């Protein structure tokens, strides 16, 4: 078996959980559940857990949408790291990023796809950046430079 630890699973991290799942909407709920449970145990403030749930859900929904369109057989990966003072999440997809990621919010009502009522994936990212103080989006995390890593973190009291 090859190593199951991607690069962002850094050595020395104390408590780390990684979830990978096929690109199905139902699994986004599992990801939210796991993220909230691990965040709670890591000492993230109770009042912020809903925010963790929502932000992780947005990142995973975006990844699942893109995978279903471009690479339905590849898994989406969520890494949860309980560092001292901070709880870190990375959501990694392996799909080519849509131009839609860059689309603004102003015209959401215009841009929503009436066929499927899909909002552009950029809206999910915008929700995350509106909710989470510390977040970043890196390109090229997947094989062949495809995909994106959405990183988020929250302070912990533990």
């Amino acid at each position, binding site marked *: 078996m090859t190593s199951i630890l991607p690069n962002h699973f850094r050595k020395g991290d104390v408590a780390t959980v990684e979830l990978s799942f096929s690109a199905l*909407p139902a699994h*986004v709920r599992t990801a939210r559940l796991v993220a909230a449970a691990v965040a709670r145990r890591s000492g993230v403030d109770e009042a912020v857990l*809903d925010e963790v749930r929502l932000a992780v*859900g947005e990142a995973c*929904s975006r990844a699942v949408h893109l995978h279903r369109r471009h690479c339905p057989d590849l898994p989406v990966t969520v890494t949860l790291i309980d560092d001292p003072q901070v709880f870190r999440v990375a959501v990694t997809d392996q799909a080519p990023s849509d131009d839609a990621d860059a689309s603004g919010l102003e015209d959401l009502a215009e841009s*929503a796809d009436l066929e499927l009522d899909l909002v552009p994936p950029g809206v999910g990212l915008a929700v995350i950046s509106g909710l989470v103080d510390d977040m970043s989006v890196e390109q090229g995390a997947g094989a062949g430079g495809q995909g994106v890593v959405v990183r988020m973190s929250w302070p912990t009291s533990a």
Partner: protein
Amino acid sequence: MDLSLSTRTEGDRTIVEVGGEIDVYTAPRLREQLVDLVADGKYHLVVDMERVDFLDSTGLGVLVGGLKRVRAHDGSLRLVCTQERILKIFRITGLTKVFPIHSSVDEAVSATE
């Protein structure tokens, strides 16, 4: 928690009461409900979100889609929501400018364009 949906009419308004989680998993059911109502000639919708525990951008997409559909028939889609954490999502995404948001079903039902 799962999605719950119930509808009733008051005059020419149709009230859709939504409960539980509107997310990537359940949003298709809300979408279906809104599409059915419009197909049924109901063009003035009030979506009561007071019992919604969770809303993500997939849910927003369905609401925006519903708004477009009723507008195509000169209709309206009004939201009822006083929950701060849900309102925050509408604010972040700029949708407070797109949806009329009311603090009670009565207020929404009696509102005029």
